[in-house]
């Protein structure tokens, strides 16, 4: 930190954002790792190199970093062009812009053209809190999931994001990663392994299995622990890859549990809950389904943690939703 002497230590400025959001550096650190290992990774952003931490990658590999300015559509289309030359571009901006503003460019230039672009939508869901609806992204899973040949990933925390990013260096398909704001509560150890397309099954409950993605995994895990402690049989599936969906994991939960509860920081329309519902509707099993998330509305503004409480996306909230189903 480079604080002026006439300011107290608690003051900070935009450029110190990186040091204030612990998992924010995962993107840049992992790309630096991959570049050092010889992977032809490149990175770009749309005037948000401090918000997503890519400033660090830009410092290490200036020739592989592209500043696109505030032009998200150009960035996505150009990333597809970069990919045709054999580089693997990772382009990052707020999820509200990449997944919605540049949606058509993602479909046409990235997915339809099968270019191995990695799109990073950060500060997803309602993690932008009081910045308001323009900066909330509660539709991005839905828009990205409808695009053929695009893998859609929502990591639970920085450790999982790191492992999935590492996997992406050798993954053929284009990928959309939706990640948080760098304050994600820790769920996993740094070296725990994950594979794109393979759910992390923490357990299947006889009473209820929660299928969650992204930041909701942390609260879901707390809720499951509390339910089990209260004498219920509860399980958890971390569905970090929403597309291609691990259908076997869904069917196992649907066959063995009485209730399947999906939890996501996203509109209940079109997201993880819809993906799970599609599989369960076509394969009737034991479980009934409840989708939990943002109930097809624009979120209120407030600090993010207060929003998670309000929308029952934290541990106690998810537990309350689950108990009402038992």
């Amino acid at each position, binding site marked *: 930190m480079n604080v002026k002497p006439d300011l107290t230590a608690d003051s900070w400025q935009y450029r110190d954002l990186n040091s204030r959001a612990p998992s924010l550096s995962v993107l840049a650190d992992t790309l630096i790792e991959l570049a050092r290992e010889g992977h*032809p990774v*490149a990175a770009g952003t749309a005037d948000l190199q401090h918000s997503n931490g890519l400033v660090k990658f830009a410092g290490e590999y200036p*020739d*592989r970093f*592209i500043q*696109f*300015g505030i*032009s998200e*559509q*150009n960035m*996505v*289309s*150009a*990333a*597809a*062009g*970069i*990919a*045709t*030359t*054999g*580089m693997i*571009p990772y382009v990052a901006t707020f999820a509200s812009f990449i997944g919605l503003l540049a949606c*058509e*460019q993602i479909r*046409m*230039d990235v997915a*339809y*053209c*099968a270019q191995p672009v990695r799109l990073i939508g950060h500060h997803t869901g309602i993690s932008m809190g009081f910045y308001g609806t323009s900066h909330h992204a509660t539709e991005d899973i839905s828009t990205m999931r409808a695009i053929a040949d695009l893998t859609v990933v929502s990591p639970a925390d920085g450790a999982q994001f790191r492992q999935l990013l590492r996997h992406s260096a050798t993954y053929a398909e284009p990928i959309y990663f939706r990640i948080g704001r760098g304050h994600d509560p820790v769920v996993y150890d740094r070296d725990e392994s994950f594979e794109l397309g393979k759910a992390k099954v923490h357990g299947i409950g006889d009473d209820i299995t929660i299928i969650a993605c992204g930041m909701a995994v942390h609260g879901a895990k707390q809720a499951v622990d509390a339910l089990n402690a209260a004498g219920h049989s509860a399980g958890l599936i971390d569905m970090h890859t929403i597309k291609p969906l691990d259908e076997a994991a869904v069917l196992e939960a649907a066959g063995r549990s009485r209730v399947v509860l999906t939890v996501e920081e996203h509109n209940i329309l079109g997201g993880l809950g819809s993906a799970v519902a599609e599989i369960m509707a076509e394969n009737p099993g034991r479980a009934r389904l409840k989708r939990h998330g943002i109930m097809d509305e624009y979120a209120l503004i407030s600090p993010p943690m207060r929003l998670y409480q309000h929308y029952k996306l934290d541990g106690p909230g998810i537990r309350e939703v689950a108990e009402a189903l038992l």
Partner: protein
Amino acid sequence: MTANSDLSQEQIEQLEDRARFVRLETIRLIEIAKVGHYSSVFSCAEIFSALYYDVMALSEDPAWPERDRFLMGKGHAAVGLFPILADKGYFPAEWLDSYTRLGSPLGDHPDMRKVPGVDFSSGSIGHALSNGVGIALGGRMKKLEFDVFVMLGDGEMQEGQVWEAAISAASHRLSNVIAIIDRNGYQLDGKVDDVMAIEPLAEKWRAFGWEVHEVDGHDIVSLTQLLRRVKADTSRKAPCCIVAKTVKGRGISYMETEPGWHLGYLSPEDSEKARQTILTTRITSCGEVA
């Protein structure tokens, strides 16, 4: 190809012949589809010919990493490009006979996954210059030497993304990006400047930091000489934009004078008449047909 050199009579005749070939094949292929963009191809037939038969560095391998790239923002003119790619040997000429039929690799818009020689898919107006900017940036990272030619429609100037790409190409000093605007003056709903005025076009590109040239896009000699010159210029620091004044439907009089030919169909009888017209005329500029 030698920069700044005059074209020999033989070269001129060959380039005119290939432009004629593009027009004739376009008529033939649209007879299969029974609807197509004749006039959009006829305005850029000379541009296709100059690039593919003189200016661009190409090889027999359509995936050669250091080939010059060609992208088309006006992807609806692909019916004029496909015969060239077949002529170059990038795919069997018989593919052309399947144009637009069920499962054909060749549709109204070019698909890089299906058609060897297509450097980037297009169809959604406004993306191509961004794709070209990316290809140039990737080439720079990979230390590959090539030029990126991006042909844009004049109606395409109405897309905001074109101007995002324009500022990024100038900002990143992509001097190997050469945009060619097919300024034929018409778009689907009428005259470009009635639908949404875009002039002063050359001044706009200059203001965005590009080196700008204007040329008669049907004068194959001037056009080819200009393209040779800008390709050979290694001192340029900025990207280059060529505003090629053209006539939509050039070569077929009723397409030149009647708006509405952006999309159309000629019966076999009228196709034959159009073929005869093309075979018996020599196009040398926007203004005269010899």
